[in-house]
């Protein structure tokens, strides 16, 4: 009889270990998949930018600096080595694109151009997708980290070497700062 009780306790313990381990694996895979989603959207943005630059080039002769800045930021972002590096470079690209669209507002024929409007929609759609992919990644990574750290699952997590997931953060101070808009007509 005591043997059966012991067997029961061991069985319950084994089931708990299996359940906790599989739960952690499931969350970790979801988290990794979330991370890949961000990459997919970043790649899409890199592909769209040359189109945009070509479409607006003719009308924006005088803004060559702005255009080259966008292309340079894009090329740099494509060579990013680490997630932190990518964060900084993608932030710079976002800023360059923002300047391009701000300047484009000065060109009436661009504002009315359907191709530009469509490209602008595609780019803002892609930027949103990047943002939502990061949001989803952070939510799932937080869930994973919480599961990894709470007692008693943390015993399983530590003995099987489940690493803490990095959250996506804004690394670039310029991106976090609220943009200042200067409406005075100086210059």
């Amino acid at each position, binding site marked *: 009889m005591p043997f059966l009780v012991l067997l029961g306790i061991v069985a319950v313990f084994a089931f708990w270990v299996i359940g906790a381990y599989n739960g952690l694996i499931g969350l970790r895979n979801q988290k990794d998949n*979330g991370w890949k989603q961000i990459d997919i959207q970043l790649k899409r943005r890199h592909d769209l930018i040359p189109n945009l630059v070509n479409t607006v080039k003719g009308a924006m002769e005088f803004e060559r600096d702005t255009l080259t800045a966008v292309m340079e930021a894009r090329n740099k972002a494509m060579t990013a080595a680490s997630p932190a590096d990518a964060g900084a470079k993608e932030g710079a690209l976002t800023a360059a694109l923002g300047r391009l669209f701000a300047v484009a507002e000065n060109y009436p024929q661009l504002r009315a151009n359907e191709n530009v409007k*469509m490209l602008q929609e595609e780019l803002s759609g892609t930027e949103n997708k990047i943002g939502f992919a990061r949001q989803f990644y952070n939510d799932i990574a937080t869930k994973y980290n919480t599961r990894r750290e709470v007692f008693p699952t943390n015993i399983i997590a530590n003995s099987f070497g489940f690493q803490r997931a990095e959250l996506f953060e804004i690394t670039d101070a310029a991106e976090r700062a609220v943009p200042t808009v200067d409406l005075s007509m100086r210059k």
Partner: protein
Amino acid sequence: MNLLEQQAANRRRTWFVMAVFIIFLAVVGAGVDAFVIGNGGPFVPVATMAALAMGGGQSWWSLRFGDRSVLASAAAIPLETRLAEAASDDERLRYRQLQNVVEEMSIAAGIPVPRAYVIPDSDPNAFATGRDPAHASIAVTDGLLRMLSREELQGVVAHEMGHVRNYDIRLMTVVAALVGAVALLADWAGRSMRFGGQRSSRRDKGGGAAGILFFAVWIVAIMLAPVVGRLLALAVSRRREYLADATGAELTRNPIALADALEKIESAVEPTPSIKQGTAHLCIADPMGRRLTQSESGWAELWATHPPMSKRIAALKTMGYLKVGT
């Protein structure tokens, strides 16, 4: 309450209503089995099981194939078709925007991209259908696309995505099965009372005061069954609307845009004839165009598939940490 607390509260209240529903069904069913069919032997709930099987069968069918008939009856056109046939650049831009917004929200919800449809109707409305996130469809009217800004459209699509992610289509089908089973049981009981006269002798076997009390409760339950079934289903539907609003806010992190969209939709609301009433519980706004003002809420609210707009907007503004004027 912040949005996660609101989600939790709405989930709790859904299950509370569902528990009441199941108890009600059990009372009605046990009564039919005891007083109408009961033959003194061991108690076997034949009638209850038969009614559940019939209600469930019908619902299974609608769960499996209902999305197609709903989309067909609303004359919904796949978004790709509309995009390919777009008459003007403006129209193409709007459809492309819808496609992007649907993709954005599926990324935020972490579910497969649902198929998107456009309904050629000038009244602003939208609905979701499909049995699970892998088989979901979202349909939006042309009127909605024309009326809302990009952010507001995102809010509405997020609300529909909320219905999909919360499995509301499945839940409402289960509720429909329960309503069907309750109605069937009440119908059987009513028929047997009209035709047979020998139940009185069986009732006496029920055993004393408790049996008579249960019989009285059961008679009342049978008489109210169709009404109570419908009211409980509507209560579940309203809870799921609040929950879909809160889920939508979680996806966009922008509850105010959805509140703005609801305000615009309400001010324009008139019947959306292309959406049939059977789909009402999955729409962003009641397609019958009934408008509930705060003053007549209460009684009228009980009979509505959607909570009053003012209450939904107030709940969303609370999520956005805006002070709500009373």
